[in-house]
């Protein structure tokens, strides 16, 4: 393919360029058996370079977009995904053909193998733009790794360009990079977050080394003859497997944490490094959970019960508080957060606006003891992201279910979005309070009872901004006025926290005769 000299590589590829590129890949694939191997490899490498260069501005644009993607951006993401997948597939075919035709596989074949693995990994990252992957097939990846093992080049290192930076990396590290990305790119991680994860994996490439025997129970495993991805724990059927020791990755994770403690972060090192610290902290948590699960064995999923109804979904804390607890005919006096008198009128007007919004109806697909599966149009799910707080009332007789969005998968061409939400509480209640910091101001907080009758797991769902102040709150209940403070965050999402409390004091206890003291 001839690069169009009139189009800068810093610009997002146009639809015409994308078509031209796809045609070139298709043409090379069709001629792969008849073309001279050297020439085919040369053309593959040229296409690979082209794709790498032209997807840099795409990734940059998608990462910088804070709002939901436009249709054009979605199309770019899908192309990035499919183009990388096709290049991975083409590269694997080329290596297979070349090893048969050539007397000895030289470094150019190893280069094609490495680039193929890199493209497959890049494609997995872009999967988030292309919707849910049902039953991802890993045979392409395994086939490349089997080829590398048979050619005795799995541990061979070569230099690849990674986001414009030359990096020395082994074939097996590229393979495990793709496998790790696939393990985490399951809808529980956003596009910026997977870019951060990928950047870290590149830094860890030295520790992504396979071993043939498990080192303890905490290991990741690949069964090369299967179509499955990374699994946890040793193989039990006696067949051979490749193992990726977890401890070096855990150690690398510790180093990242240590760097944050020291404030060491070169924000200019890559677009991923420049992303907000909060995104990095979220990825650290995803990794921590993903790696520690290995110690506990494979987690089981709660049984799901199919459902087929439409439910109203309230999004974010203000809407949940304003609409989720309103009784018919009630005024909009349910305040959203701490507010002073001056703010109250404006806030009430805003709440009125909330009431005027049309309902956001989603399909309830299934439910389990711990959460729900929902589906809706891209439009109705536009403001819902991973970590968003949602309120769902599965039926009029059931209490409002307050949940956190754990997975969000855009359905590619279908325009449907699939959500997986985990229940936080089905017994939340609004509680009027006064705050110490601004005397005489009233507010309403959302109380979430814990499972434990001791109250030690009780908390409030609050906006993050509220936690910046160390305010003492008071609330009158039937047996006195309780004063409390937030003392830690027990769970966190987009703009909200489930904050634990400590009861500081109780006053105005009822007298023995049953009435409250003045």
């Amino acid at each position, binding site marked *: 393919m001839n690069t169009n000299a009139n189009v800068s590589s810093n610009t997002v590829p146009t639809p015409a360029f994308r078509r031209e590129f796809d045609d070139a890949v298709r043409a090379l694939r069709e001629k792969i058996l008849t073309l001279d191997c050297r020439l085919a490899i040369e053309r593959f490498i040229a296409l690979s370079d082209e794709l790498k260069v032209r997807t840099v501005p795409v990734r940059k644009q998608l990462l910088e977009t804070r709002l939901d993607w436009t249709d054009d951006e979605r199309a770019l993401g899908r192309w990035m995904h499919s183009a990388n997948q096709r290049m991975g597939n083409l590269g694997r075919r080329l290596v297979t053909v070349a090893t048969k035709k050539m007397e000895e596989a030289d470094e150019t074949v190893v280069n094609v193998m490495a680039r193929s693995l890199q493209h497959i990994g890049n494609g997995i990252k872009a999967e988030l733009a292309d919707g849910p992957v049902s039953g991802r097939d890993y045979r392409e990846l395994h086939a490349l790794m089997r080829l590398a093992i048979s050619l005795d080049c799995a541990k061979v290192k070569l230099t690849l360009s990674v986001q414009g930076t030359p990096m020395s990396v082994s074939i097996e590290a590229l393979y495990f990079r793709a496998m790790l990305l696939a393990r985490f790119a399951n809808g529980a991680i956003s596009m910026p977050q997977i870019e951060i994860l990928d950047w870290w994996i590149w830094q860890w490439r030295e520790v992504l080394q396979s071993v043939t025997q498990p080192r303890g129970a905490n290991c990741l495993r690949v069964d090369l003859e299967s179509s499955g991805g990374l699994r946890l724990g040793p193989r039990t059927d006696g067949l051979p497997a490749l193992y990726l020791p977890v401890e070096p990755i855990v150690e690398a994770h*510790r180093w990242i*944490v*240590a760097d*944050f*403690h*020291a*404030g*060491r*972060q070169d*924000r200019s090192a890559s677009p991923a490094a420049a992303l*907000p*610290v*909060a995104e*990095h*902290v979220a990825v650290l948590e995803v990794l*921590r959970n993903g790696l520690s699960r290995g110690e506990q064995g494979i987690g089981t999923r709660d049984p799901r019960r199919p459902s087929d109804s439409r439910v109203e979904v309230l999004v974010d804390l203000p809407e949940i508080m304003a609409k989720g607890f309103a*009784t018919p005919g009630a005024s909009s006096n349910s305040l959203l957060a701490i507010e002073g008198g001056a703010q109250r009128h404006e806030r009430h007007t805003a709440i009125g606006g909330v009431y005027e919004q049309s309902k956001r109806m989603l399909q309830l697909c299934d439910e389990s003891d711990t959460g729900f599966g929902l589906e809706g149009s891209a439009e109705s799910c536009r403001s819902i992201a991973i970590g968003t707080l949602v309120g769902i009332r599965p039926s009029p*007789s059931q209490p409002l279910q307050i949940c956190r969005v754990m997975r969000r998968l855009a359905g590619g061409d279908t325009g449907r979005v699939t959500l997986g939400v985990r229940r936080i509480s089905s*017994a939340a*209640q609004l*509680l009027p309070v006064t705050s110490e910091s601004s005397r005489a101001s009233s507010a309403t907080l959302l*109380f979430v*009872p*814990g499972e434990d*009758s*001791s*109250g*030690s*797991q*009780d908390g409030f769902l609050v906006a*993050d901004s509220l*936690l*910046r102040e160390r305010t003492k709150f008071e609330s009158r*209940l*039937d*047996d*006195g006025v*309780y004063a*409390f403070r*937030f*003392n*830690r*965050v*027990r769970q*966190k999402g987009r703009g909200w*926290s489930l*904050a*634990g*409390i*400590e*009861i500081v*004091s*109780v006053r105005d206890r009822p007298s023995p005769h049953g009435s409250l003291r003045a």
Partner: protein
Amino acid sequence: MKIDSTQRSSAEPLHGATKPLPEADDAARAVRDAYIATRFAGVARCGEDLAETERVIRAARLYFEDSQPAMATELLDIAIALHPGREEPWLARLELAFLARNAADFRGLAHAFKHFHRASSAWKEVARLGYALSPDDPAFAAAADSQSSRYGPWPDTPNWIQATWDLTSEVRGAEFHNAMLRRATAASLPQVARAA
């Protein structure tokens, strides 16, 4: 108080997580503070907040009780690294390592603690706990005599994590929980009546 890293003795390797952090420039401090504010939301907003020893230890204990030991130890680790001159976070961190029966972690911490707080009156107690976990470690050998007079597999634990003996706060928490349950029940009755 910052301890100069040159005070370290090469013969005494420091526990990895508790090395004092070097003085940070503005950019590094901003990154660290953003990390602390996100990771320990509601507990600390920046590195300076971690100097509030009592608050930090209480939060660490609550994380530990909430089955989040990694949060608890990390909070204390960064508090120690930023303010290594304060004994209390060290001791709380040691107690958590002891409660987790993590002998390697405890040993590393104990050696580092001894390095930074040679004159600490708490060392005898640290050695006593250390001896229970690692009786072969010469650093804890002096505690052997005190162990022989004790009965039971584990020594009594100190209360460096500030677990309160006064249960008033816990009782209040349970009362609050129950009062909120009564409130929910009272609120649901009219709805039930309407539905009927």
